[in-house]
């Protein structure tokens, strides 16, 4: 009987030890390797990369450090830019990466939409079928009236 009680004690304690190990491993890992893919986006140094990794806080920091939210950036995407380098606005790139948070952050710091190639974030959202992003761009970005440039045509992902 006492050995059985001890056995059940072990049975009840075992998941607690495992959970403690998981928590220790995760928190220890965060301290030792904070840039591991397990714990967050990798360290980035350009606005294009920060947006590509959905790191809105890093993108914001880069803007606070001097990057202007409407300055074009160089991006490369297998479908949207056909694997070639292309100059686009950060807002366009945020829509392309379907990063709603960075998109809203950029609008908040003054990014604008224009119906010229690479700056037509609302047209891209429409072409991608991203209705929620399109609605947010309409509400917060005041896109210009008028047709979208032809180059916006992209394959739906």
């Amino acid at each position, binding site marked *: *009987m006492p050995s*059985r*009680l*001890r*056995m*059940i*004690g*072990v*049975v*009840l*304690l*075992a*998941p*607690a*030890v*495992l*959970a*403690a*190990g*998981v*928590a*220790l491993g*995760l*928190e220890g890992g965060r301290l030792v390797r*904070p840039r591991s*893919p*397990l*714990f*967050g986006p990798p360290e980035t140094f350009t606005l294009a990369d920060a947006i590509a990794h*959905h790191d*809105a*806080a*890093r993108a*914001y*920091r880069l803007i*606070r450090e001097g990057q202007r939210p409407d300055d074009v950036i160089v991006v490369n995407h297998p479908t949207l830019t056909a694997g070639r380098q292309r100059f686009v606005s950060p807002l366009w790139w945020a829509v392309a990466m379907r990063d709603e*948070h960075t998109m*809203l*952050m950029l*609008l*908040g710091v003054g990014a604008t939409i224009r119906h010229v190639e690479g700056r037509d974030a609302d047209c891209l959202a429409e072409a991608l079928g991203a209705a929620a992003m399109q609605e947010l761009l309409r509400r*917060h970005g005041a896109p210009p009236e008028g047709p979208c440039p032809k180059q916006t045509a992209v394959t739906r992902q």
Partner: protein
Amino acid sequence: MAPTDRGAWLAIAALVAAPVVAAICLTLWNTPVPISEAVALLEDVSRKPRLDFLVPDTSYYRPLFHIVLSTIWKADLSLDARLAAIRLLQIVPVVALVGLFLFHLRPRSLLEAGAAAAAMAVLIGSPGFRDNLEIPLSYTIVGMPLALAVWHLLVAPPRWWHTPAVLAMSVIALGFKEQGLAIVALVVAAWATRAQGTTRAQAVSAVLLAAGYVAVRLAWHSRMATFEQAIGFGFSELDPSTATARFGSFPVAVYAYTALATVANVVFSEPTSGIFSIVAAMTRGTAERWQFIHLVSSVGLTVLMAFWGVAAISRARQEGWTDESRSVVALVLTLAACGALSFNYSRDRLGGMATPFYALAAYYALRACAQRAAALRPWRFGAAAAGLLLLAGLWHVRAIGTAEAVKVTALRNQIEWLTGLPQRRREFADRPVYLSILATLHAQGTAESRPRPTNYPRALIGLFSPANVQSQ
């Protein structure tokens, strides 16, 4: 067991609980103070003199919370020091609650240490605990350790200072939120079960305190809205105006539903805010693994506790009350108090005051079940041990889920700062104090090095927390 074992098993139970608790506290320490609620609360305490918060002219009467927040915010300290104090107001009660819980249980054997560790996971993994970890809303998390401390004194051998301490802790809990009234239910539970540290005078004082509090609140604020906030009903949420139009002529039935929803949330993890969201997800076929885990672990434990509770009360009638059987009464009365106090709208956090007592009862139920299982035939013993392993394991998954949930909140707070600032500036353009607090807190809200949820491998996605939060 030798007397020295007491400390050893207590230390072991504390050691295995420590990493998850430390993860939660560390995340809270690094969490940005959010825009929502925090800035408006700081605006309130900046504009009003401290003692004005004692006037009960609001539906949300938390005078001590506001006075403490005001004292911190107006202190002649750096911004970092004041923000640290606000975070500590959330962290210290968490550590106190966990410490008091283990101290009260004082495991003295391997079995008791295992049961205490599982009960700790029940405490940490419960929605009533998880939903009270939102900085700076420390209303109920302050009351939870106070309730446990009161219960500890009530069942301990009497000392001259116990009664003033019980009353003082009741007043503090009540000053942080009306849910502190649940402590009165505890005093009544202790008196009704003839706990050695309770007297009739103590019970009468506690009931008078509660009656006085309710009378003052009603006298000052006699006309309250039928529904203060959105309510959950069945599978959907109704905003206050819709709810008033639909149920305003006879709200009692919905009040009863809402009160029961809070109770059910503590014992079954469903519904949440009055909405049967897990059941709805299951019927739609969209339920995630964490939802199954929450429902199965809660239902399994509550069923086990129901069998144990009935047996414990039957035994108490014949052999007299023990700490074990008293915990059944404490749980039932605190659940009733939490339900009654949340009649107007149900939220997970409103079950917070009953949560330590759900976990306390879980400890006794698991221990009793283990003792009973030990006497079974071998194959039945094996099945019972496997069942206990599964149940304890599921609750530990939930405890890790709580550590993840606070990380999700930290990230959401940061995203709110990154994306919601321009809108807030426009919306509150005519409130200079609000705008100046926004400007003051802006840097801490947008700092890069903030906690983020773990990007678990695909096989573990949706196990600890909703899958969609990982891609935020």
